[in-house]
């Protein structure tokens, strides 16, 4: 086709019809994917074809497609990643602390305080009637129950600690899978881009993986000219083009004997990833610090109960001789009733000199809960209230952080969605435009056809 004429006018009209058809196709694709998660709205970039230069000026040659592009906003995307990471972190913390609250019995079923109360009540009961075998047996029962409650709660907390460790490991595996998927998509995107196409849908898939990754950990991305995306977690490159630097879980022991679980990357000299946000950070904080901390406080309470009760009880005298220890063990897990006492309730000492009616020791032990013993600054009850108050504070903190963060993430998502999402009404309106444009071009074809018919009729 060269020169100016009716045929070239026909070409112009056809280019318009082509573009309209393509645009309609893109709109169809948008409408079809309106509900696809992570889908970015695509649009046809249209330009005019280079004009034909003739002696008296330039004449347009119609429209042409400059490519299908995808709506995106990197700033909002990064915001969403950052906020999602915090959400993942708070979700992990909140969920675990909920479990801790459940284990402790919450508000209405406070297992430790109830067992402590029953223990002190049993001693009061014995002080009322030191000759009663039943009252003595009640002390044995309450002692065993107190120890058992501590054992069970500690074992449940240990289970939570193990669960958080397992979850952390599972998340690391997930992260590696996601990073591999990103690297894989990087490779395909680079290959397709080299062919001159923009692989929008592959890029959407990659974005979807990155969105999922955001809840797990905070990261930044860097898009290269070839279309691939590098991923950095806390400043360390984990995906470079198609290469993945996988995370590994490693456990170490701290100076004070605690177990610490970390994720590292690199081979010979592995570097610890300092997670700051995301589910990984949350679970790591729970399993390395919070649950062990809660258990340590529980141990402290248990060992104080054991020590203070034993100190008094050993100063007692029974018909069988001098007082023995009432509890064995020195922590929540090891606390137990002295087997000898469990088997012979006559070893329960109510008094200090073996006289049957002497109830002075029973009263003193019964008062251990509320009174501050010499040499200590807090009563056992106070210790417990501080402990439970601390757990409640953490629980409240992460509960409110979580509900606030849900709103923040939602609004970040809405803003991003506003940039890249599909509005069907908008697409339909565009469809009308291109439909009409197609019709108009078709009319031009008919007009040219008529003109050509006229021309042919003359011949």
């Amino acid at each position, binding site marked *: 086709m060269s020169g100016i004429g009716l045929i070239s006018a026909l070409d112009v009209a056809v280019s318009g019809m082509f573009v309209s058809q393509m645009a309609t196709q893109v709109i169809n694709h948008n409408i079809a994917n309106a509900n696809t998660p992570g889908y970015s709205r695509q649009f046809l970039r249209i330009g005019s074809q280079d004009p034909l230069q003739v002696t008296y000026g330039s004449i347009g040659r119609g429209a042409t497609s400059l490519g299908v592009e995808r709506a995106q906003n990197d700033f909002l995307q990064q915001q969403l990643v950052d906020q999602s990471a915090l959400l993942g972190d708070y979700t992990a913390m909140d969920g675990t602390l909920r479990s801790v609250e459940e284990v402790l019995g919450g*508000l209405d079923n406070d297992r430790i305080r109830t067992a402590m109360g029953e223990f002190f009540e049993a001693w009061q009961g014995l002080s009322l009637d030191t000759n009663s075998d039943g009252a003595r047996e009640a002390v044995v029962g309450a002692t065993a129950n107190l120890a058992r409650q501590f054992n069970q709660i500690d074992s449940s907390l240990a289970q939570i600690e193990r669960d958080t460790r397992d979850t952390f490991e599972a998340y690391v595996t997930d992260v590696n899978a996601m990073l591999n998927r990103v690297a894989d998509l990087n490779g395909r995107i680079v290959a397709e881009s080299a062919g001159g196409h923009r692989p929008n849908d592959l890029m959407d898939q990659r974005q979807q993986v990155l969105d999922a990754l955001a809840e797990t950990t905070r990261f930044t991305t860097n898009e290269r000219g070839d279309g691939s995306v590098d991923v950095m977690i806390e400043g360390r490159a984990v995906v470079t083009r198609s290469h993945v630097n996988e995370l590994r879980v490693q456990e170490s022991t701290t100076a004070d004997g605690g177990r610490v679980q970390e994720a590292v990357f690199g081979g010979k000299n592995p570097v610890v990833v300092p997670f700051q946000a995301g589910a990984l950070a949350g679970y790591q904080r729970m399993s390395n610090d919070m649950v062990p901390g809660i258990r340590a406080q529980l141990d402290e309470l248990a060992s104080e109960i054991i020590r203070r009760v034993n100190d008094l009880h050993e100063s007692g005298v029974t018909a069988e001789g001098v007082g023995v220890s009432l509890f064995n063990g020195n922590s929540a897990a090891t606390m137990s009733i002295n087997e000898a006492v469990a088997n012979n309730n006559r070893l329960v000492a109510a008094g200090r000199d073996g006289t*049957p009616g002497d109830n002075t020791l029973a009263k003193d032990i019964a008062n251990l809960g*509320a009174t501050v013993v010499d040499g200590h600054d807090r009563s056992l009850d106070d210790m417990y209230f501080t402990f439970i108050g601390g757990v*409640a504070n953490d629980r409240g903190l992460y509960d409110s952080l979580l509900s606030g963060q849900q709103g923040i993430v939602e609004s970040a998502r809405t803003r991003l969605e*506003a940039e890249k999402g599909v*509005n069907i009404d908008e697409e339909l309106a565009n469809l009308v435009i291109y439909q009409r444009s197609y019709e108009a071009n078709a009319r031009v074809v008919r007009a040219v056809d008529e003109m050509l018919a006229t021309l042919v009729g003359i011949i």
Partner: protein
Amino acid sequence: MRVTNQSVARNLIFEISRNYDRMNMYRLQVSSGKSINSFADSPRDIGRLKRFDALQSYNDQYLRNLTNARSKLEAVDTSLQRMAGEVAGLRELVQSQVSEGITNADTRANVANQVRGMRESFMAFANQQIEGSYLFGGFRNNRAPFSLVGDEVAYNGDDRDPSVQVGPTLELATSVSGDEFMGTDAAVMAGTTELRPRIRAGTQLADLNAGAGVAMGSIEIRAGVDPPVTVDLTGSATVQDVIDRINAASGGSFTASINADETGLQIVGPQPVSVGETLGGSTAGDLGLRGTTTGTLLVGDAIQPRLDASVDFAEMRTLDGELPLGTLRIVIDDVVTDVDLSTANNLGEVRAEIQSLIPDMDLLINDGSISLSLDRDASFRSESPPGDDTAALLGLSGEASPTRSFQVFQDVIDALEADDTEALRQTLVEIKDVHDHLVGLNVQIGGRQNTLDNQEAVLMEREQTLMVERSRIEEVDLVNVATRLTFAETTYQASLASAAGIFQMSLLDYL
């Protein structure tokens, strides 16, 4: 801003679920009646709620202990009454024997046997038990405290009284140990005058309440309709410290000082004053200040320190203007001893003066009064020589004889069997003493029962306070929450309806 279908849907779901959560929260509050249902609902209140739980359970325990103490005291009370009844019966029998003067040996033997029977039932009451523990055995309460060995009664208990805890700082003895009415050969005459030292600005708080001290915490003072003032007294050491702290906190609306009797504190205000505890405390009660006055002067209860041998007589208000002391006359078996106390400045010196003349007499110092005891099987009388009132001043005016509850039965039997009417007549004095002693113990038990009643009222009030405080923290304002629930339900329904509306709208309908 572009609004996309997905973000509309997501927002709707987010908002609907948030409305649903809120509605659920109010539903839970209405159905549980509590605004705090988990730690997260109000973290800073959790520790306090747990403390209330603990205080409540302790309070319940004190109430249970109190019920237990009451039943023990009632049993003690009944036994003591019956024992006094037996002794009264003995007195009637002896009186009729003395007045009728029957000398028939068979009759006397019969009467003696009757007395033996009385002793047996007296002992049965003394050996009463409740729930397997003997009432009058002291700490040795797992076997009968009294047993008859020949004609002698042996006591197998000890002299300690088991006590029960009926309040955070209150223990109450639930019995008297049997040696109290087993009797000794010693004659004891209890003094009647209150001699406790007066309260001074510099008096240590630890010495107050007969040495029991003061549990230092905060007290709440309310003057008229002004908002209550909470005064933190922790760390105070002397009475003056307490007065200073109260006055510093009063802002001029009331003034604390030592009361006119110097037995305790008082608070004066231009308006009626009321003093109470802050939660869980006993400071106001320990300071004798707990109470309300309709006038403007709240006079506190007596809280003086314990009496001891070294307190200078000048510190005893009852002796004001009466010093130096005069002479105490003690008559033992018609032997008169005059003890010159004019140089004595304290009770220790009085004791020394008495013992220098009567070595087996002792001056016993009780919480707030003194007693004389004679370690000899003899009666004695204490009085003042004519024109002197020293005995009355010290509360030591009267007679005492040994009280030997069981021995008195034997004395009667012996007198009957020996046909000694004079000896029989002599036993009447002893019988009266024993009877009085038993009645005295009974009064003491009655006093403890009153203490229990008061303490029960205190515990009940405390329980009420705890419940009110607790519900103030955790109970829902039902009207408020029910209204909010209705709102939340309406909002939820509206959000569902608008969701349905939004999804129905589409440009497709118009093309």
